[in-house]
């Protein structure tokens, strides 16, 4: 009996330790968040606290891709009809989903959470602005926008990432809008094809409750796709403020081509819960797949002998979607 008690106590200790340290850390993060909110209310600018290298390495060591795939598999399990309404209602309540905009409002219609997540909208719920040349490709929150300077792009104010790391090295193929180059500064110059033009960027964060399909932001032609398998860290604004080059670490699909003013690209960046990306006209694309290793990339050209212009996209046209896991 004594031995059994000792073993039991010993077994419980790691759990207690994890609970205490995890709880302590969560409490500390909440306190930090509270302090930041108070400073923001007082109009004081919050100093940027970037994650150190070991913190990024530690986060990257978490098997986020495996977790994401497990999450995806779990959400593909068909729910019994009686369970659908309570499960989806909890999701709606937690993430503030507006079901009145959904093409199908009846919750029993969606066989699993993945299908619910991919729900379509009523056509009249999102009128496409016809007066402006660039529209929002998705629902979300604007994290940052502006001009690209010195080959650095801002993911949030003051936290940058390298344009070259994000888009990958230049290719010399004819289908890309830019040619072989050796330095980063010239990459920006090479992307700008017309004199007097500048390079601009815009970052839109999609929260879990948002409509997760994305559309063409303008009239353009997609000539190239580059898929970067990578980590699947969270991309919420707090993490984007904490980890420099976050979007360069994560799995992403870069679609590039041209519009009436020159180079144009749209990149879909994955996250832990939303690990896979689908592009409707690209049937060969497989994201969040174990067969790809981090750090590599896969190119695909839409320019063929039969189609020298690539894939023409109209403003507002369906382009792709994010999927759970």
């Amino acid at each position, binding site marked *: 009996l004594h031995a059994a008690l000792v073993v039991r106590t010993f077994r419980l200790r790691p759990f207690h330790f994890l609970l205490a340290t995890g709880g302590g850390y969560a409490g500390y993060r909440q306190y930090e968040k509270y302090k930041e909110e108070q400073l923001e209310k007082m109009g004081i600018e919050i100093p940027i606290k970037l994650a150190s290298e070991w913190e990024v390495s530690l986060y990257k060591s978490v098997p986020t891709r495996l977790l994401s795939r497990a999450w995806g598999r779990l959400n593909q399990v068909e729910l019994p009809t009686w369970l659908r309404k309570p499960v989806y209602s909890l999701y709606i309540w937690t993430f503030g989903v507006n079901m009145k905009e959904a093409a199908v409002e009846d919750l029993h219609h969606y066989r699993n959470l993945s299908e619910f997540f991919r729900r379509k909208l009523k056509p009249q719920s999102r009128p496409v602005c016809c007066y402006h040349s660039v529209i929002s490709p998705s629902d979300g929150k604007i994290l940052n926008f502006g001009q690209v300077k010195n080959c650095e792009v801002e993911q949030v104010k003051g936290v940058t990432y390298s344009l070259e790391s*994000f888009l990958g090295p230049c290719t010399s193929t004819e289908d890309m809008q830019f040619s072989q180059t050796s330095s980063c500064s010239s990459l920006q110059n090479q992307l700008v094809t017309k004199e007097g033009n*500048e390079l601009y960027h815009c970052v839109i964060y999609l929260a879990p409750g948002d409509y997760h399909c994305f559309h063409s932001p303008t009239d353009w032609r997609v000539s190239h796709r580059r898929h970067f398998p990578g980590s699947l860290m969270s991309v919420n604004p707090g993490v984007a403020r904490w980890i420099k080059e976050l979007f360069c670490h994560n799995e992403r699909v870069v679609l590039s081509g041209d519009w009436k003013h020159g180079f144009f690209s749209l990149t879909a960046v994955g996250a832990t819960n939303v690990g896979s990306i689908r592009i409707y006209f690209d049937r060969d694309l497989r994201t969040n797949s174990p067969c790809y290793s981090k750090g590599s990339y896969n190119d695909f050209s839409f320019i063929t002998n039969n189609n020298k212009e690539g894939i023409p996209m109209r403003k507002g046209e369906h382009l792709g979607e994010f999927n759970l896991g």
Partner: protein
Amino acid sequence: STIVLIFEAPKNFNFHLKPGQKIRFGEALGSL
């Protein structure tokens, strides 16, 4: 998940946005 747009445009391109604002698909991002 996040969408990043990087594009070339003339110098007089203007964004009609504020950082942190909510946006919906189809609304204006910017124009010349």
